């Protein structure tokens, strides 16, 4: 059963140069107790998507369509006052820069209790006890824990381990797995690092230029990517375990979202694009149970995977 279901969610930014569809028709589920890895490059809309879910978007952004169904309620349709019942209590967020989520001039304990009492959920004494419990549960890394102070059911973690040393990163990922088990917490882990997803997440959703291009159980995506972008990402990622094979970059740059290409947004960089890809936007389709991809040639994925390992194919002319 899905705790969160996004249905054709669209988020737009109004800019001086026009309207940009940063999140453009995203359909995605997060199940109870699962860790979903949301992977993509900078500017692909993954942070915007996370912020849209708890509706803390920047002023020039708005939800332009679609649904955010959390536990049966469409958050996108809620008045702002009611939305506050969900923030922190049901859905919490660890923003990208952890140091920014805590006020440097207040002690950690006070910051915990503030979250717990301001929302009216607990008395100060109970709040104090609750924060101590949480600290015991996870050990040293208390600073990120404010997000969990109210026992939310869904945690949005935006690049929680980026820029951390690997040993600290490992500890936090380990803690995240422990918490999901002990608190039956669901997590959306936003990251650009597919290695982190491989070892931490149950499922992986790959985002490109405002679209989800592939959603699959993690064990399946690494041997069998179905979208050419996912194949390209795998080619370009150095693997600590593998011998020194040559990495293949994805040439070109993501499209300008003010003027996205009419067909598939990845087509200009895709070595397998056919005429249809340039004019018709591929829908996200379920190819096998639980395995979704948005590619007109997804049925040929087996053959494309083999071809995708040839460096020459990725040298598409850059416009």
């Amino acid at each position, binding site marked *: 059963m899905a705790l969160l279901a996004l249905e054709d969610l669209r988020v737009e930014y109004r800019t001086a140069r026009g309207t940009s569809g940063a999140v453009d028709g995203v359909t995605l589920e997060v199940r109870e107790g699962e860790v979903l890895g949301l992977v993509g*490059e*900078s500017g692909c809309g993954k942070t915007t998507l996370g912020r849209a879910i708890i509706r803390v978007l920047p002023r020039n952004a708005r939800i332009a369509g679609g649904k955010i169904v959390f536990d049966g309620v469409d958050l996108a349709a809620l008045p702002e006052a009611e939305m506050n019942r969900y923030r922190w209590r049901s859905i919490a967020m660890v923003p990208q820069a952890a140091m920014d989520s805590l006020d440097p001039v207040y002690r950690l304990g006070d910051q915990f209790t503030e979250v717990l009492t301001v929302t009216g959920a607990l008395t100060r004494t109970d709040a104090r006890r609750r924060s101590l419990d949480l600290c015991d549960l996870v*050990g*040293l890394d208390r600073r990120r824990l404010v997000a969990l102070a109210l026992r939310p059911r869904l945690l949005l973690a935006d690049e929680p381990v980026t820029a951390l*040393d*690997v*040993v600290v*990163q*490992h*500890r936090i*990922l*380990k803690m995240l*797995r422990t918490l999901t088990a002990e608190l039956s917490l669901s997590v959306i882990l936003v990251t*650009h*690092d*597919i*290695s*982190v997803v*491989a*070892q*931490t997440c149950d499922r992986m959703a790959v985002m490109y230029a405002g679209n989800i291009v592939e959603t699959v159980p*993690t*064990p399946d*995506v*690494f041997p069998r990517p179905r979208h050419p972008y996912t194949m*390209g*990402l*795998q*080619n*370009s*990622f*150095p*693997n*600590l*375990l593998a011998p*020194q094979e*040559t*990495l*293949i*970059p*994805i*040439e070109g*740059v993501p499209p300008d979202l003010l003027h996205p290409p009419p067909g598939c947004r990845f087509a200009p960089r895709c070595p397998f694009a056919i005429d249809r890809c340039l004019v018709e936007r591929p829908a996200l389709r379920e190819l096998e149970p639980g395995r979704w991809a948005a590619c007109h040639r997804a049925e040929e994925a087996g053959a494309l995977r083999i071809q995708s390992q040839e460096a020459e194919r990725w040298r598409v002319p850059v416009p």
Partner: protein
Amino acid sequence: MARPGPMTRAPAEAAAANGPLVAAEAVQKYFPLRRGLFARRAPGEYLRGVDGVSFAIPRGSSLGIAGESGCGKTTLARLLLRLITPTAGRILFEGVDLSTLDGPALLAFRRRAQLMVQNPYEAINPRFTMEQALAEPLVIHGIGTREDRLDRVIAALAQVNLRPADAFLDKYPHQLSGGQLQRVGLARALMVDPIFLAADEPVSMLDVSVRAGVLNLMKAIARARHLTTMYISHDLSLVRYVCETTMIMYLGTVAELGPTEAVLASPKHPYTQLLLAAAPVPDPGRPLPEITAPEQVPTPIGPGIGCPFQDRCPQVMPVCRTVPPPLVFVGPKHEAACHLYGPH
């Protein structure tokens, strides 16, 4: 081959031609700490940025330096480029002590050794066009005429696969993607034909899909020009991809040094083992391993008695508390600074 020079110069020339391009000999860099706004320096209160490091980089080879933030990697790079000077020890470049250079010799060194930094948007003046940014090093070193410089700039852009080069000449940094601008950063470092290139986290700001392009380019250019390179990275998979030799640093010291494959495939130092265990790998079949190392935040401040890694080491022994471990050979060309391996 010319006749041998005067006897006094022969040893230096021999060292320059056959020896390593860069050699560090017991290099230390301590940063004095100040207490309070107007307090005097407290004697003995130092931050040990680099604490007795020795290694050599053979000509044409690539050295990767890895370790956690604060381990002294960047300080070491700045020392090797003589952006700062060591507190003790010597750094030899082509056999010559860097601290003895001044005037024209220093300018010549600045031309031969170049640095590529992490953030290309900081490296390149936002008010410069690509043509200005790339011509600037030529102007500083007085290379070429005005027309000649334009030709060199165009050739440099083409060399880093920014084509057609003419299209980039009048562009400003904000008009380029991170990957394109980092290529310009590379081109800029190569404008004055260096023989040594140090790259400090050259791709960590870039998107995954374009990192490989920049790394492949750096590898190809280094090979074609017989450049000696040094990469600083916290990412061991990157080091494995580009470097023949790997050096693992911990709290300003060398923990392990050796051929990359040996260091990463059979790490000897408990710290290297910890780093490798913690590093994520793209293999869903391998769950996150259990790590038993104590959670200590190491400090580079204070006297530093014994092994710097003792408080986090799962295999700590009494000797580690008092005696700093020297580098000992643990395999061919492979050294580790750990009492587990001697000296016995």
